[in-house]
């Protein structure tokens, strides 16, 4: 049987990897505290031209580049 605790010898490495990802995810929310406001502003602007159902804003990173991807769902 393969139990996770049978493989405990290298669990420090597992801890390190899990922590890296958890902390990166935590930071994502912290870095962009303005996302809610940005969303509100974009809705206001787009509404001047057409109906909007919802807006999705995601932070994406690809190596050294970071981007905000904004999806506007029209209503």
């Amino acid at each position, binding site marked *: 049987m393969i139990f996770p605790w049978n493989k405990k*010898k290298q669990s*420090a490495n597992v801890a390190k990897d899990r*922590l890296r990802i958890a*902390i990166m995810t*935590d*930071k994502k929310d912290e870095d962009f505290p303005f996302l809610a406001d940005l969303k509100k502003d974009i809705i206001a602007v787009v509404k001047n031209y057409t109906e909007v159902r919802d807006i999705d804003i995601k932070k994406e990173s690809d190596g050294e580049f970071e981007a905000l991807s904004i999806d506007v769902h029209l209503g």
Partner: protein
Amino acid sequence: MGMIIAIISGKGGVGKTTATANIGLGIALNNRRCVVVDFDIGQRNLDMTLGLENRVVYDMIQVMDEEASLRQALIKSKISDNLYFLAASQTRDKTALDSLKIKQLIEDLSSEFEYILLDAPAGIESGYEHTIEFADTAIVVVNPEVSSIRDSDRAIGVLDSKSQKVKDGFDVDKYLIINRIVPEMVESGEMLSSDDILEILSIKLLGKVAEDKGVIDASNQGVPIILNPKSMAGAAYRRIADRLCGDNVPIEEPKVQKRGLVGRLKGMFS
């Protein structure tokens, strides 16, 4: 002007209060005037760690509300004339804290003491924010364990956005203490190493403290472990205090305790 140091951790139970008591006493034993302040409003604990619980008459909320003078509320340590203690309120809650009053209290302490140690409550709520608000240095206490490290990163994040020093455009100095290291487990790859933790948190290292059963015994008696000459944790806290006092003491890695044949046999049966 004294140096205002907040002792923080995010997660509770990692040894923050023990660290505060021992570092405070260590600084005092270096002949520097030091005050330790318990900011854990409603859950006073530093008094017991220092063995001063029977001496508390007035707390810091009463000082801030001008129901008592600072001089009345400050309790002198039985061990060192250079160490003073200011208790947290046991009956009020953290909503009793007010930024302007805290600022005044810290300014008053800072004119009398060289080191002002603020023991932060666990968590990153308002009580924590008030503790770090006027600190110019933070000591982060972590255990080599995932939830402690993650929570400490969150606490550092709050520090970097909410402290007055940061709002004024400066950096808060941050130092890490890795507490409760089990060298055997680090060696066998079952516990995060100090290098792993430093890589993840990327702040300066102040000290490494081994897991030490003597810490419980010390808190049972209200005598900080720094006074126990045989204790590894005590020695680590002495070095940490010396470093804070400006001595260039190298950081020691907790070592696996080599046991003789009798010790090993005992270990097999315990």
